[in-house]
């Protein structure tokens, strides 16, 4: 395959469920070879509905999907041996042991790794003889990941891979995903953890109500967002006592009791001016918080926009 060709191509994808609910409303994106791409969104944003279509579990209502150059639903026989899937929720018989589950799955995968090797990758080898029903939620996620890796997939779909994991388990999974990416695996993952998307993804798309609200590298997405400065006004001072906010490069401000919040795209300049003003006035700015734009800002900004629209409507 041409290395310039995208591993995943999604064009104007739509998914409408039987009841008429429109979960995916025309999204397009592509994922290059060896890239980690994250679909970020709140619950109900359409992440799982989208991933299931990419995995070829159902045909899309509209639009086009190509995974490794093929239609994952119609040409599943060609695509499946090259993909690995981790569903959002288990899917293992509760009475089988970890080893039995892995052995069963290995028997269903072409070119499978030895089951124990896959379990070792996720740190589950010492739990081999434990029944699935006795695993913790996090261990089940890791078993699911082990099975997704059994076939040494070129493309990995991970639907909320770290939900239910503790901080350590989450870090282990991130390291594993990075190692796989470095080995050339293309990864598409969904998450509602902002730090996960920020730390792991080469590129991401924020989904909201079935549409892509914003997409790009984490840096690009956050660059579009203003930074924030907040502090408590000293006693006897009012917002009007500050230097003219427009001259500080402040886009907007809000006052909440004594607390002032400024939004700016020129964080250094605005912060300097505020501090210089405080210094000249000889006052202390309590609760001073200067914070660069983050994915969280972008995410909350998108949710807030939608909320504002709903309020207006």
């Amino acid at each position, binding site marked *: 395959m041409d290395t310039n060709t995208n591993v995943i191509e999604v064009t104007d994808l739509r998914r409408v*469920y039987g009841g008429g609910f429109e979960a995916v409303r025309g999204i397009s994106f592509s994922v290059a070879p060896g890239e980690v791409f994250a679909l970020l969104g709140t619950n109900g944003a359409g992440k799982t509905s989208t991933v299931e279509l990419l*995995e070829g*579990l159902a045909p899309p209502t509209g639009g086009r999907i190509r995974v490794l150059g093929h239609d994952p639903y119609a040409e599943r*026989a060609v695509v*499946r*041996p090259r993909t690995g*899937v981790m*569903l959002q*929720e*288990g*899917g*293992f*018989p*509760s*009475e*089988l042991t970890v080893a*039995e*589950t892995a*052995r*069963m*799955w*290995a*028997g*269903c*995968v*072409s070119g499978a790794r030895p089951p124990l090797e896959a379990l070792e990758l996720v740190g589950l080898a010492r739990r081999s003889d434990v029944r699935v029903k006795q695993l913790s939620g996090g261990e089940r996620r890791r078993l699911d990941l082990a099975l997704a890796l059994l*076939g040494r997939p070129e493309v990995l779909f991970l639907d909320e891979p770290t939900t239910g994991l503790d901080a350590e388990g989450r870090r282990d999974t991130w390291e594993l995903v990075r190692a796989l990416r470095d080995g050339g695996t293309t990864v598409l993952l969904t998450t509602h953890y902002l730090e996960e998307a920020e730390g792991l993804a080469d590129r991401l798309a924020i989904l909201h109500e079935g549409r892509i609200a914003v997409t790009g590298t984490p840096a690009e997405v956050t660059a579009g967002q203003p930074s924030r400065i907040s502090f408590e006004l000293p006693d006897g001072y009012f917002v009007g006592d500050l230097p003219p906010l427009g001259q500080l490069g402040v886009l907007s401000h809000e006052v909440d009791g004594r607390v002032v919040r400024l939004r700016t795209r020129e964080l250094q300049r605005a912060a300097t001016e505020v501090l210089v003003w405080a210094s000249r006035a000889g006052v202390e700015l309590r609760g001073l918080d200067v914070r660069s734009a983050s994915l969280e800002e972008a995410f909350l900004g998108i949710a807030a926009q939608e909320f504002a629209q709903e309020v207006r409507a």
Partner: protein
Amino acid sequence: MSAVVDRVVVGRVKALARAELTLFGRSKGMIVTAVFVPLVLPLSVRTAVEDMDLEGTGLSVGMVLLPGAIGFSLLFAVYSALVGVFVGRREELVLKRLRTGELRDGEILAGTALPAVTTGLVQSLVLAAACTALLDVPAPKAPHLAVVGLLLGLAVCVLLAAVTAGLTRTVESAQVTALPLVMVAMVGSGITVPLELMPDRMASLCELLPLTPVITLIRGGWTGELSAYETIGPVLTALAWAAAGVFAVGRWFRWEPRR
């Protein structure tokens, strides 16, 4: 090439069936319904059959009980058991998980059904041997018919179990949804009451039930009294049920729980 593909498919189905067999061995409920019920039921209907007026039908008690016993095995070890298994695997999201892999839909159903089918097969052989030994049933005169009947019976039971599973929401309700076919078959398919003892019109209606042709063929295998012409009807009826089953499964089988 195709031999390679076949070997791959067989390997996948075997891996799945092996896991399913392990699960079967770990479920007490399954072992009771699938192994003990079919072995015990023939004994309990024996007195009823002995009280029947079989004169004029040309049938002995053993000739009624033997196909009936195999019918019980098909109904409990294969059909009822599999309704529960299909629903259970669906509700645990196992079927959905399997569908993300290389297995094709038919392979998933086949691998999941294989332990139950094997149970039904082994049980039928054991029951046939037991009836032969204990009820003075002579050796089958046309064994090929019995084999055809048993194979058709297994296929129809697996397919109808998958169809029934599509209409069943929970593992608990599988006990209930499997009941109608079990009851109808027990009464109307010659498993407990030979069709020869029914009024003609009712008998010809009962001939169309899914398991009636199976029982007719198995009994014919032992009596050797079915002419080639007389086997056509039952074979076609059973094939029609199998075809209807394939269609219904393709259309209505559910691979994941309702949202």
